């Protein structure tokens, strides 16, 4: 299998650095973008299957970005990681195609599990293709 690629999108540089450091350690290949627009440029060039998206981004927000990603490639898994939780957001996130929703501060172990499950699911889908 290709090295498992993850794209993290968050406008907080410290969070991007943390996520990259943590997921690199776990054996994933991680790239980061500080806006949805930069994420779109990366998506044009590289193939990502798993995403961790902040919702509150400057310009295009995480929900719109998720909709775009899922529309263009339904065989992707995106997780929302947000600093503010509300019931409304959970509904909107599910509707936009997010697999799950995590509120900051989130346990890294929980995020590692989410990534692991995402890649297992993708592998299963690929076998059934």
């Amino acid at each position, binding site marked *: 299998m290709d090295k498992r690629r993850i794209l993290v999108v968050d406008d*907080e540089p*410290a*969070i991007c650095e*943390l*996520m990259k*450091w*943590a997921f690199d*350690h776990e054996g994933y290949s991680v790239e980061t973008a500080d806006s949805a627009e930069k994420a779109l440029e990366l998506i044009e060039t590289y193939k990502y299957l798993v995403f961790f998206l902040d919702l*509150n981004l400057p310009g295009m927000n995480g929900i719109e970005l998720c909709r775009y990603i899922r529309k263009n490639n339904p065989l992707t898994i995106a997780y929302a*990681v947000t*600093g*503010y*939780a*509300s019931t409304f957001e959970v509904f909107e996130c599910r509707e936009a195609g997010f697999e799950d929703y995590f*509120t*900051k*501060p*989130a*346990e*890294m*172990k929980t995020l590692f599990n989410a990534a692991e499950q995402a890649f297992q699911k993708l592998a299963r889908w690929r076998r059934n293709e």
Partner: protein
Amino acid sequence: MKVLIAEDDLTSRIMLQSVLSKWGYDVTSVSNGEEAWSVLQRSGAPPLIVLDWKMPGMDGLTLCRKLRDQDRSDPIYIIILTSNREPNDIVQGLEAGADDYVSKPFDNEELRARIGAGRRVLELSCEVARRQKLQGVLEMAGAVCHELNQPLHVVTGYSELLLLDLEESAPHAEQLRVIKAQVDRIGELTRKIMRITDYQTKDYLGRGHFIVDIDEASSGLCLMNDQTKERTVDG
């Protein structure tokens, strides 16, 4: 609910005081506009006011105008008592800031109905104010939590990763565990704040300084306590 009666005629004043008390209102009565003004400047002043139009000194209409010109934080409801039944007079009273009027000599049942309507309007105004206050609390809480959760995520994330790499007995491992536990505590607090659904306060140190009770306000089960309700309705 507290009611203020301002009426210079002793007989009318006693009658009003008597019927309103019988209907369950907490009545304060005065005999002129100046006294009424003074009562209404105190904290916890009655929100429901029955004013005679014609009084020596400051009359009811002048008092109405003065009250409406004030920047009052709590709502008031003013009923003018008048012998003037001409439409122009009624218009003049309403334009001066009265919410309603009762013609003299008044009919008890009409008076009761009009005072009851005033009470309902005041209760509704207090409920609207309470909801606006809650909305303000929620918006502020959301913004603060959102900003706090970013650095918290970074600190808790790095703490967790460092602890995974450290031996149980490594130097500073215990201190790092304490840092992680305390940061997690702040995280729990921001989660609680984001669950606030009601405006609940508690008396901080029992000194009459009220702060939002985060545990109660985020429990989703609480109703406004009587003390808060009494303060908002009766000023």
